């Protein structure tokens, strides 16, 4: 999980991802952030995301991001 927080902080250092959930609903992450995040995750966890999994609801919280990494074969 630490790595996910690290990636999110790299994208938006001004936002407190630990205290807040709903990063899509809150408009913190936009579509380009999601692509950047998936790129970082794929590199780190040596996985390739299924295109159907790259949807906003899978990136709304750290927990949902961890779940989609696991779904695509990554180990958290």
């Amino acid at each position, binding site marked *: 999980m630490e790595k996910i927080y690290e990636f999110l902080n790299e994208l938006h250092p001004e936002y407190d991802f630990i205290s807040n959930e709903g990063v*899509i609903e809150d408009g913190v992450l*936009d*579509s380009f952030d999601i*692509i950047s995040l998936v790129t970082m995750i*794929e590199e780190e966890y040596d996985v*390739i995301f299924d295109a159907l999994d*790259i949807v906003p609801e899978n990136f709304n919280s750290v927990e949902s991001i961890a779940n989609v990494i696991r779904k695509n074969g990554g180990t958290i």
Partner: protein
Amino acid sequence: MNLNYEQVIVMGSGSLASNCILHLLQINIPIPITIYETNITNISTLESLAASNGIKYINVPKEEIFLDLAEIKKNTLIFVIGCYYIIPSGVIENRCLSIINYHNSLLPKHPGRNAEAWVIFEQEKTTGITWHYVDEKIDAGEIIIQREIPLDDSFTSLSLLKFQNRLALDTFKVIINDLLAGTISSYSQNKELRGRLHLSNEIPNNGLLDLTWSIQKIKAFLRAMDYGALRRMGQPKVIINRVKYTWNKTVFLNQGKNRDELTVNEDENYLLISKDGETVKLIGLRQEMGESGNGKNL
């Protein structure tokens, strides 16, 4: 705020469109905003942005969008951002409309699609962003504002797109008040400097790594093809002994042999390309699916 327009339309998609709309909301423009979303992807966020801010959101086929725009009778400022449609003359000729397009190059260089990849592949020293008026030719209208970006060999297509999006938003914030007031000036593009129009189906060297290139050209090609998870141009490929291969990961090493050397490691499925004292390592090399049908490793 003294406004020259009765409404604003944003046509397009993507994070820059979304961030420009957020800025319009932040400065409280007293006229309605309408979004026409085009090129919708799984990760589009414009619809939810519209819903949470009470903005009219329209998602219809492009023919219907253009019919709507051609019939507008109010003074309207239209921003075309992240939109791949070619706007027809019936819309451009509507005198009630001022149509402004965002393009991610220093026009007149690199008009058309995927400019970020072409500037990297062609090893340009600079690129930039342009906000310009739309006329009957693609990316050829009068320039409102440009910003230059010096390029170095750290940029990939994805990182350059991201950098350009940020710069484009900053520039949008600079020009928006004058645009809304109708007091902004513009100037013609130098037609003699106009670059070749890049079409959507064009990919640098058709996506094929040429092993006879210099190491710098090889690296430029690989960075140009790198859209991360956006995968806009698909996977690059290389032909070795008449077999086409693709790979999972590319690593640039700042050391290597001065003479050309190609090392294929069949046990660990990687390819090392050494030239000019540098090395490129292609990891996870595998035969391309579809060529032989099996997609097997080396």
